[in-house]
């Protein structure tokens, strides 16, 4: 429940796979780069969030757990 998803904008190359795997929280802008919602993550989305992080071709996406500083 304390999970947050963030992106490293330098590493991100705009593949857009994250938006396909976590469409409830990630959308793409007109250039293909992720817009990530700041809404809290319900437990049922956590698995999808972690999958999106694992499948990013450039490993630009990462998660922050409860106590991690933003």
């Amino acid at each position, binding site marked *: 429940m304390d999970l947050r998803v963030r992106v490293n904008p330098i590493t991100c190359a705009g593949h857009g796979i994250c938006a396909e795997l976590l469409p409830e929280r990630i959308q793409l802008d007109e*250039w293909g780069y992720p817009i990530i919602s700041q809404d809290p993550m319900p437990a049922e989305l956590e698995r999808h969030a972690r999958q999106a992080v694992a499948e990013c071709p450039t490993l630009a996406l990462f998660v922050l757990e409860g106590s991690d500083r933003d």
Partner: protein
Amino acid sequence: MPLSKDIAGAFGTCEQTVGPGRLLPTGPHRAADLNQHLRAHGPLPYQDGPKLIAAAGEAGLTGRGGAAFPTYRKLQAVLGGEPPVVVANGAESEPASAKDKTLLLVSPHLVLDGLQLAAEAVGARQAYLYVHRNPELLKSLRDAIAERTGRQLDRLAVRLVEAPARFLAGEKTALASRISGGSALPRFNRPPVSERGVGGAPTLVQNVETLAHLALIARHGPAWFREVGTPAEPGTMICTIHTMDRPVQVIETAIGTPLRSLLPLRAPATQALLIGGYHGTWLPTVQAAPLPLANAALRPLGATVGAGILAALPASQCGLVESASVVRYLALESAGQCGPCLNALPRIAGALAALADLRPEPHMRANLLRWAGLAEQRGACHHPDGTVRFVRSALIVFAHEEHCHLQGRCSATDSRPFLPVPGIPPGHRDWK
């Protein structure tokens, strides 16, 4: 669009200082002199780390690089881990700012004193002075450092590192990258530079003016520092002042000084004030004129003092042409690493340039606002945020001018460029 003038590199045209001569001596600027420095300020008072950090806290010293972050907290942030690295950041990078160069030419020993004191306070093992590549300045600094070494004033050897002439070269992650041997391109700030910076070590980055203030606080104490300025924002700051048809002035003044005593702010002769540099904010003259130079008064209007850059735009110039010129420069200065910044800024620049040229693009306003919204907070550094802030304020303050341009006319009577924007050779790629 009128051609932007290139920036001259002559240092002899420094204006003389007005105001409390703390960092910059009153009267015409003279070159640095160690003996004169020691006579005027006394010996370098090395002291106990916690004592210095506490003094910085009591004095209420905040960063003079633009962000105004409390200095004592920055000092504390690098404690407790491996021995940190301390960097004096003199790469001001803003074409419109001359305060750091001036300070380094005129009072380098105050800066170098502050660097030694900060290094001692945090137990640093390496000290750097980071400045733009400029032969006269570098020579002057090397001489100053050598003289101090000769007299065994410095406990930690200071290494001079050259920064490329890029707008982002002074950004803290770009600085850490450059000093570590790479190019001066911003990096993702996780972990922050205060944890892993130069060579992977915790790094303290302080603007050169902040260090100069620290050197004086160490000598005279926090109460002395608070004798001028405001209770919330004590001390003095150095400003760079741009007025049409006058030489650029570098002035040290107490924070809280009325803006109108620093530069001409009479409507309608002056139409707007740019405060905070090219990541700053335009304010209409009538709104700016009664204000003091203090964040407490400026923040409610969406502005900050930043690094003390003030420019009074005369009514004879076109605010849109000036703004378009600046935004074009800012777009070209993007590091090109983050998709939103790289895509939005050139488009914004193009739209503004077209508007300035009296050939506005269709759906210009809607596009500008959308691109601005997409750029904000989606880069690794604050370049897109600062640029968008400048653009939004320009669209507000020059709304009347925009209306004229949309009807195919410009109300300016003078096509000479006002704000300094460096000419960039095509294909300029040097980031080292």
